[in-house]
């Protein structure tokens, strides 16, 4: 076990900003990519349904 306390864990031996800045931005990037793709997929399906509907009426 590396950490004596939660504070020590957050401080990362004085490098907290750099370490958490790296990990947080990476996680946010991945989360945005996944959410963005899910929105894009729904959008394409929706567009296609709308288009299809238009054609059939």
């Amino acid at each position, binding site marked *: 076990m590396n950490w004596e306390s939660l504070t020590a864990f957050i401080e*990362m031996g004085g490098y907290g*900003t750099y370490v958490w800045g790296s990990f947080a931005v990476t996680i946010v*990037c991945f989360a945005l990519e996944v959410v963005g793709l899910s929105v894009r997929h729904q959008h394409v399906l929706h567009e296609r349904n709308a288009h299809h509907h238009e054609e059939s009426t």
Partner: protein
Amino acid sequence: MSDIRWYKFSSPQTFYPLAGTLAPWFGVAAALFAGYGLYISFFLAPTDFQQGEAYRIIFIHVPAAWMSMFLYLIMAGWAAIGLAWHTRLSSMMAVAIAPTGALMTFIALWTGALWGKPMWGAWWVWDARLTSELILLFLYLGFMFLHAAIDDPRRADRAAAVIAIVGAINVPIIYFSVKWWNTLHQGASVSLTRSPTMASTMLWGMLIMSIAFWLYAIAVVLIRVRCVILERERNADWVKQLGADA
């Protein structure tokens, strides 16, 4: 083996549901590996005697940097196959890989800056490794923007493939830059020809995180290629017949 008709999967229509089935499995596997990798990164890996806790950035920096190079080569490979044999799905794969490759490159640069500042005293230096990685980002963006700028998708595929293929020369330049030039960036962390220079827990954590990044990249590329297939084939009968939640 000859019973499996691999070419069958080269049709977007057959690949679409296959990718949809595979993507969640890769996603779940990526999450499991990332969880274990993060546990090693923060709780098992010891403090570095030179760099203190700052070195923990390596657990995302190196996997992201590796992926940025691997994904470029895979993207260029698919683009080249699409260019040579006019296979639609190959070009769609290249298009689906580019944004994830660009994202990995951005993460490698970002985490590199946050590691460089405390260790070198600078967010950025114009040395060979950093500069060639920045060029990689521009190659990905160039590929994406050129593709988006041409209305006819098949023409866009061919034009963008040329950038992808020519740009592939940059990948070995990035990889060997630390050997060929005097750079501030440290040498390769892992080499096949000599024993690792780091503690085995650190190495292990880095490899687990790399597997997580691989699995993540495969999952998102499969999801994106499904979007690309739908966008391009929206007028095909099979797309019209898909259910609303397909």
